[in-house]
């Protein structure tokens, strides 16, 4: 068989391309991502070594966050603290959120689609579609979970967009990252009649069950009015420093099953359409 190499090449190339283009294959794959035990353990071991070089900065950030949190918690009484997780009833909404502390053990900012790996998984209560934040702002959303590790899409990933709000006016838009610069993202769908100016805060809208309302995303850096369009083109300076992520919190919305159930009833109801 003289052409066996060509046949094998077509077979392997076909298999690889099928993995690339079958968009669901990434979503469905249980083991072919960095949350599996082997890759997770390697990243964890690596991280425990490299982290020593960043301890100064990490300590400073954590102590700043502590100070900020303490000033907020000061007036709340009877907040139950379980292990390293805090159960809080945020005043802004009626939902109950649980924050699970975790650490990013692998992260990238220089690809068109960036992902991160967390050092906690199913055994610590991490589930798919939970939001990930730091004291400074949003980080991303969990997509894959194994027993002790998890993988998530970072904001720096053009495969998803985030429901965002212009804090001053309360107008909603969606935030998309267009690649190349890890410090800025683009906000679209804010109508032209809204009064905006550089420096305005952009926060999460609370329209999805992933993030609570009011988590910081960034500030307006620059904006333009594209010809013939009804919406601004706004570039947002992200408040999270994606290049130096370490400790993060994963948000569990304890009302999520109930919200999903209600939404499914509406979706199935022929009268609603």
């Amino acid at each position, binding site marked *: 068989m003289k052409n066996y190499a060509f046949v094998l090449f077509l077979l392997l190339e076909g298999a690889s391309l099928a993995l690339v283009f079958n968009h669901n294959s990434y979503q469905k794959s249980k083991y072919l*991502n960095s949350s599996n035990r082997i890759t997770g353990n390697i990243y964890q071991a690596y991280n425990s070594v490299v982290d020593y070089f960043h301890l100064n900065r990490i300590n400073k950030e954590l102590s700043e966050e502590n100070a900020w949190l303490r000033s907020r918690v000061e007036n709340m009484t009877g907040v139950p603290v379980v292990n390293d997780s805090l159960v809080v009833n945020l005043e802004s909404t009626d939902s109950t959120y649980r924050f699970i502390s975790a650490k990013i053990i692998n992260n990238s900012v220089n690809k068109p689609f960036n992902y991160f790996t967390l050092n906690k998984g199913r055994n610590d209560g991490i589930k798919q579609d939970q939001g990930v934040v730091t004291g400074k702002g949003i980080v991303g959303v969990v997509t894959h979970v194994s027993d002790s590790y998890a993988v998530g899409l970072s904001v720096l990933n053009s495969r998803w967009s985030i429901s965002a709000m212009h804090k001053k006016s309360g107008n909603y838009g969606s935030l998309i990252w267009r690649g190349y610069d890890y410090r800025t993202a683009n906000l679209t769908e804010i109508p032209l009649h809204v009064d905006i100016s550089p420096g305005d805060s952009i926060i999460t809208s609370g329209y999805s069950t992933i993030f609570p309302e009011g988590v910081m995303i960034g500030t307006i850096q620059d904006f333009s009015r594209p010809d013939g369009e009804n919406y601004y083109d706004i570039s947002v300076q992200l408040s999270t420093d994606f290049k130096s992520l370490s400790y993060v919190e994963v948000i569990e919305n304890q009302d999520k099953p109930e919200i999903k159930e209600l939404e499914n009833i509406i979706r199935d109801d022929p009268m609603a359409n």
Partner: protein
Amino acid sequence: MIRWLIKYAVIFVVLVLIQVLFLNQMQISGYLNPYMYILFVMLLPLSAPRYIVLLSGFLIGLTIDIFSNSLGLHAAATVFIAYIRPFVIRSISDREEEINDYPGLKQNKFSWFLYYSAVMVFFHHFILFYLEIFSFTQFFSTLLRVVLSSLLSIFVIVLSQFLIFRE
């Protein structure tokens, strides 16, 4: 045979670790993503059966994919250069010139190895970056990514021949 297998198993692990724990963590800029792991495919003996070369390419590509959550991308690019490897070697070598069975830097002329790395790296990066973005709307910025990253990868690959893969 066993020694040969162990040697390449060690090279495999070392290259994957260098790639995911060092090169992938550098994060200099979106335009500079060096990929050195393709050395595994480049360094297989010229006498190795073609199915071994193709399967090795697929295996190391898929391993890198799993570490970087880019299912299939690296596998596709690496299988392609594994397939074209014999053609590349034939086209860059003089007919009279004896090419060593082990296509490393020490065993061959510097200029030969430089051509060899440059061609393999460029094809790999070209497929990788265009497949990743999968649109020609950013044609020139992606081309710039291919060229700049290729230069860095070639540099890293040639440098590695002086530092770790000396024999």
